[in-house]
């Protein structure tokens, strides 16, 4: 492009001429088109606001086309707030916004079409959005047709925090009215050649964090796989993935009881209802006042409801559901994003939530295991001897001019150790705030700790060399803080069960992965001691007609 080129279009005069010829071929006013295109270029350069552009041409456009699909001033301003920059960026900002379909967005962004070039003007009879769509194709972030939910319920389970108390199993049984031996949630201790229970354990020393556990644990709910083999093999579609949140569920009204899902599941999470369930349908109870069991047993779908929750009726397959009645808000808003087992777990080893949301508990626990472990441990009052004080506690206990040791002594339960961990959390924290859609307990607990540290620092400066050394934080770098946390919680590896089978499970584990030859051993709590039946066959054998004791294939 030469400097004396007077064209307004960046591609030069020749291009403009070509476009003008194209405009001449249409039934519309070429001069108006060229004029608009010229000003549209000014809009892109920021010389002219889009609102001004719109006002300048609104009447002409109405006269020429009889309609003007470009945005009103208000819509424009709303869009402007969403995103600043090129048309493409603005469209991207709208993309995925649930409130508006992409097409609507396009219509509103008609002004952008003009800015792209006069080509859009020639196609105006089809509405200006068409050419923008064309321009977007290929490098757009996502096609309209691949609508994927941004919710996927799942878990991160900390096996080193699990103490095998089986509370989750009993809570699950009660929540879902399960028969004896139907252990949707199953907790086991295991050993293999590299991981013995008693001697040679990773923890030779008792710490408050590891609770001196001698057991390698495995917590096995349904993995709610993204590529669930059970769903693939189902001859009826009874076993399905709920679109809106990725839960893998069984429609008890459709299941024919062929048990192929149980056959195909590599984890063994399915339990068939071989006889009439112990709890009658009318007695299923999950709400405070369930006048209708449907409320608990039926989950919400795009089109109506399906019977997928709680214990299965006779002759159909059941397994862990991840509590859809809770996720649907039927048990109250505060239970959305929680599950019966998670709520029951004393050490907070089970973290349930939307694994696609980086702010959720499972994501935080998976991505920042060290920090999250420390947070859970310091704020989980039910099963921890160490508790972080709240900002209020600090404010009421401390006064100006306290030195570090005095301050610590003045707050009940606070130790140098706890304060050091709190400070370390603050140092490594990115300050991400919890979302408001679901229960982001780790991030809200983190916020509590951050404000407690902030409160503390109003009275005592923790960022001095002296304080750092007293808290064992070395030079006070983030790395040192991380190291301090690791000392406290360990740095667990993470894994998913049977990753090589290709099921893409939505449960992630922190801790030791059982090897291929791992075998279940007796755990710290016996199943029968908490009213559970481990080997269901013992019960099923009672119903077998003509059973010969002790004979097996």
């Amino acid at each position, binding site marked *: 492009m030469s400097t004396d080129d007077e064209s307004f279009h960046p591609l030069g005069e020749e291009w403009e001429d070509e476009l003008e010829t194209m405009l001449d071929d249409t039934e519309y006013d070429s001069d108006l088109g060229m004029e608009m295109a010229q000003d549209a270029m000014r809009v892109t350069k920021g010389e002219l606001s889009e609102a001004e552009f719109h006002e300048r041409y609104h009447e002409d456009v109405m006269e020429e086309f009889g309609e003007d699909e470009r945005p009103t001033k208000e819509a424009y301003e709303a869009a402007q707030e969403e995103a600043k920059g090129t048309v493409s960026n603005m469209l991207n900002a709208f993309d995925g916004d649930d409130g508006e379909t992409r097409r609507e967005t396009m219509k509103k962004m008609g002004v952008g079409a003009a800015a792209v070039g006069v080509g859009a003007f020639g196609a105006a009879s089809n509405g200006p959005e068409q050419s923008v769509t064309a321009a977007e194709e290929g490098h757009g972030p996502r096609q309209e047709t691949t609508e994927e939910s941004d919710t996927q319920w799942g878990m991160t389970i900390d096996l080193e925090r699990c103490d095998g108390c089986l509370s989750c199993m009993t809570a699950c049984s009660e929540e879902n009215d399960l028969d004896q031996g139907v252990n949707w949630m*199953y907790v086991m201790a295991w050993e293999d050649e590299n991981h013995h229970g008693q001697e040679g354990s990773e923890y030779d020393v008792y710490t408050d964090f590891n609770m001196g556990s001698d057991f390698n644990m495995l917590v096995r709910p349904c993995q709610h796989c993204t590529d669930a083999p059970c769903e693939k093999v189902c001859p009826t579609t009874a076993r399905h993935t709920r679109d809106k949140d990725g839960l893998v569920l069984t429609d008890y009204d459709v299941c024919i009881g062929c*048990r192929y899902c149980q056959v195909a599941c590599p984890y063994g999470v399915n339990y068939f209802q*071989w006889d009439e369930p112990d709890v009658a349908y009318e007695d299923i109870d999950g709400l405070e006042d369930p006048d209708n069991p449907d409320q608990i047993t039926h989950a919400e779908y795009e089109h109506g409801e399906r019977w997928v929750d709680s214990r299965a009726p006779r002759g159909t397959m059941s397994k862990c559901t991840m509590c859809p009645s809770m996720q649907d808000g039927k048990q109250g808003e505060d239970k959305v994003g929680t599950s019966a087992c998670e709520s029951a777990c004393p050490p907070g080893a089970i973290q349930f939530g939307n694994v696609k949301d980086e702010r959720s508990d499972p994501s935080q626990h998976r991505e920042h295991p060290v920090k999250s472990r420390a947070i859970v441990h310091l704020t989980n009052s039910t099963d921890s001897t160490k508790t972080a004080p709240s900002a209020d506690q600090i404010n009421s206990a401390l006064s100006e001019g306290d030195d570090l040791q005095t301050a610590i002594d003045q707050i009940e339960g606070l130790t140098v150790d706890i304060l050091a961990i709190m400070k370390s959390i603050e140092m490594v924290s990115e300050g991400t705030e919890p979302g408001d859609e679901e229960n982001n307990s780790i991030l809200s607990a983190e916020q509590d700790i951050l404000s407690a540290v902030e409160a503390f620092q109003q009275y005592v400066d923790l960022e001095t060399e002296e304080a750092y050394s007293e808290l064992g934080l070395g030079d006070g770098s983030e790395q040192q803080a991380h190291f301090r946390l690791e000392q406290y919680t360990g740095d667990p590896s993470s894994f998913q069960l049977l990753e090589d089978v290709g099921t893409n499970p939505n449960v992630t584990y922190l801790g030791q992965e059982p090897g291929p030859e791992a075998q279940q051993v007796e755990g710290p709590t016996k199943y029968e001691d908490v009213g559970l039946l481990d080997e269901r*066959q013992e019960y099923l054998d009672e119903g077998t007609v003509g059973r010969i004791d002790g004979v097996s294939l």
Partner: protein
Amino acid sequence: MSTKTPSEEDILRPINTLTKKYFILYGVAALGLVAFLVAWAYQLQQGLIVTGLGDWGSGGGSTWGLYIGAFIWWVGVAHGGIILSAAVRLLNMDRYMPVARLAEMTTIGGLSAAGFYILVHMGRPDRMVTSVIGHYHITVNNSPLVWDVTVITAYFVLSATYLGLTLRYDISRLRDDLPDMFEPVYKILTLGYTEAEDKVIDRMVWWLAAAVIIMAPLLLHGGVIPWLFALLPAMPGWTGAIQGPMFLSIALMSAISGIMIISYAFRRAYDWDHIITDDIFRGLLLWLGFFTLLFLWFQLQTIINGVFLGPTNKAVAIEAKIAHPIYQVAMTMIFGTLVYIFLQGIRPALFSKRRALIASVIVLTGTLTEKILFVVEGFLHPTFDIYANTPGTYFPSAIEWLSLVGTTGLVALLFLNLSKLVPVVELHAIEHLRGDHEHGEEATEPEVEA
């Protein structure tokens, strides 16, 4: 071997006689079936808890058992039967023409028993239509169980058409000697028959036979049925490409044995020494030996692949398999039969019909045992075998055992009924044996084959 000349009268004998033995046999078969129907009703009332089945995994049971094992065994008998009959037609193995229709009827019987097992096995059989057919357009894309039902249905249609078409020739010619009682049935069977269609039917049947032979290994017992198991990645006892050929060899072994037993019974009951000759038994026995050899070869492949540096899960599953006493017994029985078959091939004096019958019974028992064990073993040694209660326990309940009696009764009843309705030996076969068949000149094939 016999000096008697085969006649129309011979093949009409089952239809036009009614003996005390027949009634006794009918009574026993009906009793077997009814006994199981009663047991099934009890199962429907109580739930599947009356079986010995359970949940694999923490539950310590076996999800599938005798019902599915017997299901694939009956499907195998059925598929082998129709393959045999198709081979007779396609390859002009005229020597076996007298048992071709028995093979086709075995297919119908086997498929009926297998279909019945599908219902018996389910927790909610009442939903078969709404749940399975209602979602067919979706599930047929994924579920091997739906492929299975699809292909079995296709084969049922194929086999029934095959049988129906070949019956037209016989019934129209023998009509005068058939009982008037069944007149409406014959009318329907021979609807619009003219002699001009014989040639067309011949060609149609040939094409049907070709379809059976081509589809059997690719889709049916070499495909869809083994895929039910072989495609599941986390059950090393099942996984693997060998299952296709393995299943097909078992199907053919079972079918040949089944047909030998049924042929033996008919020959004995109706003095058909000159129709179902010793020569047919000798030939069938050699074919049985051939497929038994293939079966043992595939077993060997499976075992060596698992125990010699196999991956952990596979090694565990295979080592458990070969250590299982029932597996050892079944394989010994089958291997022993193979030895006998080879010996009598070398020294024909060792052959007798009774021994052939015993060989057949042994092979059928062996394959049924292998099938049930195969199904259960998948659950005993899964890849994820961390559970203390895995391997679990399973032994079929009285009701499950009774299902074998019931389905055998069902198939026996089918033969007993059909033998009173239509000739179980083709008219073509008689014509061929007499040498007055139009394709008579083709009967010059070698006497001993395989």
